[in-house]
């Protein structure tokens, strides 16, 4: 059985950021895909949930504005987290999400581990797939925001750009959205829910803590570093309350079911997708 020792992994701000991103992303995916598939029964039924074809775009636009604002706030938060007295160490150090050479080594070693030819890589606080998750969203959001604004205000856009830029913007907006939705609903959901060590749900993003033995197995370098700095005692957390666990299990599974509904129907009706 698991030990009851818990290690703090995400603070309240980070968890709220994830919750915010989760809700806005699902609304954007729902409204956006309802319009992308509007020629099919799936798109029409999904758009009815968001008030029809025309209301869906209004929701999509305003939630997009909210999301972009959240992106700005998060960027300020990240900048405030950098230790400006020693910026190199804090940007490229192990507590940062900036990829470095160690990630490439860990990736190769983990691939060899999956076929049983190497021990587990000694990962630090952020593994390479977690960094990829984060940075993929971080570059995708400005791209979607800029192309989305271009398409929302075509007359303003064509004051500075030729009209065919709108064709390209539409292509980028849809292709990036499909990429993000596919990645989140296939890979991110698999890593967070279906992977044997996380089944039935990885609770770290909601409870904010992971089991110490899980951290020792998957992220040994992080625990070692905390021990060396004498911060391990400080990083111990209380187990989440029962009612809180119940709430986030229900919430997480609601999001999962909604995502899988979009994914399965999206694959089934994929021949109706018009990219531009």
């Amino acid at each position, binding site marked *: 059985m698991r030990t009851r020792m818990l290690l703090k992994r995400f603070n309240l701000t980070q968890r709220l950021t994830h919750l915010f991103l989760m809700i806005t992303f699902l609304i954007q995916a729902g409204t956006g895909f309802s319009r992308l598939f509007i020629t099919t029964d799936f798109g029409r039924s999904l758009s009815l949930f968001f008030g029809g074809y025309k209301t869906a775009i209004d929701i999509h636009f305003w939630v997009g504005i909210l999301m972009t604002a959240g992106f700005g706030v998060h960027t300020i938060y990240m900048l405030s987290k950098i230790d400006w007295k020693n910026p190199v160490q804090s940007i490229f150090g192990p507590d940062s999400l900036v990829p470095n050479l160690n990630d490439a080594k860990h990736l190769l070693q983990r691939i060899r581990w999956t076929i049983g030819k190497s021990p587990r890589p000694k990962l630090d606080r952020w593994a390479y797939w977690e960094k990829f998750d984060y940075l993929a969203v971080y570059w995708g959001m400005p791209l979607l925001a800029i192309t989305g604004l271009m398409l929302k205000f075509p007359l303003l856009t064509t004051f500075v750009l*030729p009209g065919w830029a709108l*064709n390209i913007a539409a292509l980028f907006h849809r292709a990036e959205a499909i990429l993000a939705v596919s990645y989140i609903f296939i890979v991110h959901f*698999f890593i967070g829910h279906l992977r044997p060590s996380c089944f039935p749900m990885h609770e770290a993003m909601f409870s904010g803590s992971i089991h110490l033995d899980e951290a020792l197995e998957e992220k040994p370098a992080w625990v070692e570093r905390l021990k060396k700095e004498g911060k391990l005692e400080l990083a111990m957390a209380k187990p989440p309350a029962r009612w809180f666990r119940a709430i986030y299990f229900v919430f997480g599974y609601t999001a999962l079911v909604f995502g899988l509904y979009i994914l399965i129907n999206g694959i089934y009706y994929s021949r109706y997708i018009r990219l531009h």
Partner: protein
Amino acid sequence: MDESLKHRTVMRVRLICFWGAIVLLIGVIVMLFVPPRPTLAQKEVTSPIYRYRERVATGYYEGYEVSPRRKRAVLEVPTAQRGLFPFGSASAMVQIRTRLPDSHRGLKFYFRNTCIECHPKQARNIHSERAGITCRQCHGPEPIPAINHYYSPMNPIRRHAYVCAKCHEGATAAFADFHVHEPSGTELSTRESFPALFYASWGMLLLFLGTLAFFVPHSFMVGVRELTETKGFKNVTHQWVLPLIERCRGKVRRFLEKKKLPEHEDEDAS
């Protein structure tokens, strides 16, 4: 007394002139570097040079009246100008269909056909699919003039005002450069007709395929490997699978024992 007053006045006038000259100079330099405000389409312009041009206006918006200048992504090469003698008598017989007053001139059984029968690809566009707009709502009634015919409403010279602005209020020539009937982004022929779309589509497609082709098998392999590890084994097998098997096995055993019981009795009896 008078002398000094005169002197001060002269000095003041000189100072005002000096600083005035400097301010003027800076103003001129700034004016040189500040670009003129972009003239928006369909906006009357007031400067004398434009008013002079207006007197000889041709009735449609010219390049200088819209910003930015139309940059055409699709390159057209008129076929009749190819060959050794492009302006010979033979090429004069060739009808360039994009320039005829009636683009369907001389087609047999024309009035028995629908548009989509000959232009199937053109039917797949966002205007007709999403907004339910028919071909004729933009291309006009019979005879449908060719796109590049001089008096055609579809001519890029006036398309924004005569066609697009029917729905898109304030449409400019640059706005009208949006490609309604765009080619498929991944087809090789698009590389010549609309290169930006071609490279953008292939870039996004490769990014999509590359991301999923790496992360889907990789995550799946990790999942399979974790099943065989102690922790994954414990978590899934010990908590979920083994108890289930144990429960089922107990039921099966009890079921089998019930069946076997009478046989044992028989053996004992004999």
